[in-house]
């Protein structure tokens, strides 16, 4: 049994119940992009990357 999958299913359904499915997806997209963030030094380059991540996660 894939507990990860079961839990994910529970969380997703909870977010749907609260009409937050789109917001949850935004978070997952943002999270996915932030995986490589540790590769960036803590300077403007990193902020540039965060800026790109936010621009990508939140559509106008």
């Amino acid at each position, binding site marked *: 049994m894939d507990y990860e999958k079961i839990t*994910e*299913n*529970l969380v997703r359904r909870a977010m749907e119940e609260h009409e937050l499915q789109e917001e949850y997806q935004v978070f997952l997209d943002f999270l996915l992009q932030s995986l490589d963030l540790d590769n960036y030094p803590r300077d403007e380059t990193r902020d540039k990357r965060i800026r790109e991540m*936010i621009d990508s996660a939140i559509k106008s």
Partner: protein
Amino acid sequence: MGVPISISISSSGRNMVPSIKPDSIIQIHGRNGVGKSMAATMLEIASGNYVFQNEGQFNKLKNVIDSCKIFININEDKERYEVKLTPSTWKFNQSINGVNSLTTGNYFYNGKEIKLEDFKKKVNVRVIRGDESLSQQISFFKDIFTSKISQKLETLEKSLLLVESYKERLDKTLNEQEIKEYAAKNDAYNKVLDKNAALETSILYREQSLLQQRDQVPLLKKLQFILEQKGRDHETEQQQLQGQLDSFKTKHEAKVKEKIELEKKQKELQGRFDAELQDWINKKESSEKKREKLKETLRALFDAEAVEKLLQSDDLQASIKYNQGQIETLENNSKNTRRDLENLSVKNERVLGINGFLLRIDEFCNQIQGEPFSADAFIRITGPGGETSISPNDLREFIKKSKQVFSEDKQLKEYENKVTQINKQLQTLREQKDALTELEKVQRNILALTQKIESKGANISEFLEKKTTIAIQEKLGSVQATIDELNEDIGSAQAKLSDITHDAEELAKMPSESVIRENLSKLGCTLKELTLEACSKKLVEIQKEIGRNEHQLEEQKEQIGDVKAKIKEIKQDMDSVADQFKNIGKKLGFTQLGPFMDYYKSHIQKVNTLLGILKNLISKMQSLQKDLEAIVAGKNARNARNGELIVGEFDRIFREMYGQEEYFKYVFKEYRSIKRFDIKARTIVFETKTGLEEMRDLNEFSSGEKTYAYCRAIIAMMSKSAEYGIIILDESYALLDHEHSQDLYEFQKREIGAGGIAKFINILPLKEDLDQVVMKLRADTEKAAKLGSDAELATLKDQLRENEGYLQDVQKAGYYQRVIKAA
């Protein structure tokens, strides 16, 4: 039989069963402490499935195992997996109560290193322990859910922190308020630019309209003129007016001559009157000069305040009278004083004479003082009273006393001074009187002359004959009135003549009506009908329109001035921060301010949106986690939606897990199906075979039933979870009766046959006395060799051989393995 999978374990620190046979279903019977369960635990850890009770248990295990290598050979060495567990590097993963998968160890496939995830896809080991049950399974699910949600919460909070700190840095660079202010200014700037453009367009349009309208006016006027002139005979009108004009001029000329004669006569009379008047004026001027001189004199004689009062007084006679009174009083004073002075003078002369005599006697006495006879000589004095003798010294003393008596009278000097002073006052008063008298005389003269001059008009009749004067005056007035009337008539006639001439000339120069109308039409002006009234009406309309347009144009030009000033003001305001914003924009790769501001504004909104999303998700996730714990603890969820969802999810999982046919055969025998699973009450609602609903608490089932159900559930859960699923049932049979045990083995056989699970390892305690078993089998074999059949003997020999092997294994390693034939 499925694919053969043999397992060998090499470890130090704790005993572990070193090898497991390749057969699909194996029983391991062993003594306590030989390492059956430990081997199972290591295999489960290697698969990443082992869940520790707590971190303490994790640390305990980590510290007692020095090393552990697991070799799994599949299908006679065709696939070789090797796992090198490294307990010394293990890290505890709190979210799953397990080993952090990155620290578990090294994995190899046919000698080549692979990842745990890849290993798990191929080989997945799960241990079902005898002490696990349905209740524990619920707790297990709850823990899994809670830890997984915690993981998500942790990730969410990390993301929130990341975005918040990013927002703080953004705000330091260019905050939201500054953006809003700049955007507001920009909006205001665009609005005034729009207004300016609208005004410019309107002004241009209005100016063009005005040009057209102004061009229409002269054309309309021309048309109006032409329409006005229609039906007039200019020539006849000119001739008539010329005749009238000539007549007026002739009359005018005669009247002018008459006027000149009258004026000449009047002037002659006027000249005489003027000579007399001039003489009076000259005299009056002379008197006025004299009056000024007298005033100056008076100012020298009186104090300033008194003289001004005097000059302002109308009644100088009273002043003169008062002055005369003062003079008389002073003269009387002077007279008395002089008399007193004369008396005193007489008296004083006598005193002076006595004193002179006494002085001479004193001088005599002084002369004789040095003579020899002076000491006892006597001077004989003869007087009216007789004769007496006196010594010189006594005489001198007498004289000295007499001088004091006959001293000059002091009053004499004072009287002299008084007289002098009175004389001076008298002189002043007399001068004042003279000046006032003269002034009064001059004033009177001036008054008389003024009255004469002023009464000139009245007096002119004294020089002229009254009738003549009146006649000339009246005549002159009448003539002048006639001249004036004629002048007006001439002017009017000339103007009319000029107008007619002008009209005639203008009419001759005018274009035709049709040409004018065509030109008007080109300018956008049409007349409904060609009448003077229509034309005049149109002209008034156009002129009013021009007036309105000019007024509005003026207002708009004022407005555009204000708007341009506002544009300048806002631009200056924006420029003051624009450079700073541009520099920030450059760093972000923008060359122009506008696009940068648009982007930045939008980006900040996105940051805020993301922050809002993360906070909201955290809140909802925390609520979900709390409600999950509450429900598993038998309480109500705070959020009803969460509550329904959690209850539904557990219902779904458990119905799926326990809804299989075998459960109804061996555990839920009296029921037809599970209707629902109530996590809060920890009860299962069944449908009975008669179609009724019946509720049963999990605890109401027997321990064996619960264990059986749990084992079946886990096996079902593991089925086809990996290419080679391995399930270890660690002393799960202790609570199972024979029937359930046999069914479980049957179930294992079916799973092997279906390919869902590759290998079952059943761990059992070593309960039988193998020595006794072997001894009995030997006895039975010997007996069968003598009395029994060959078949019976063969079976007994096999059993003996098998058990002797088990005995040897137990004696050697403490356990033995029995193969259960899968098919």
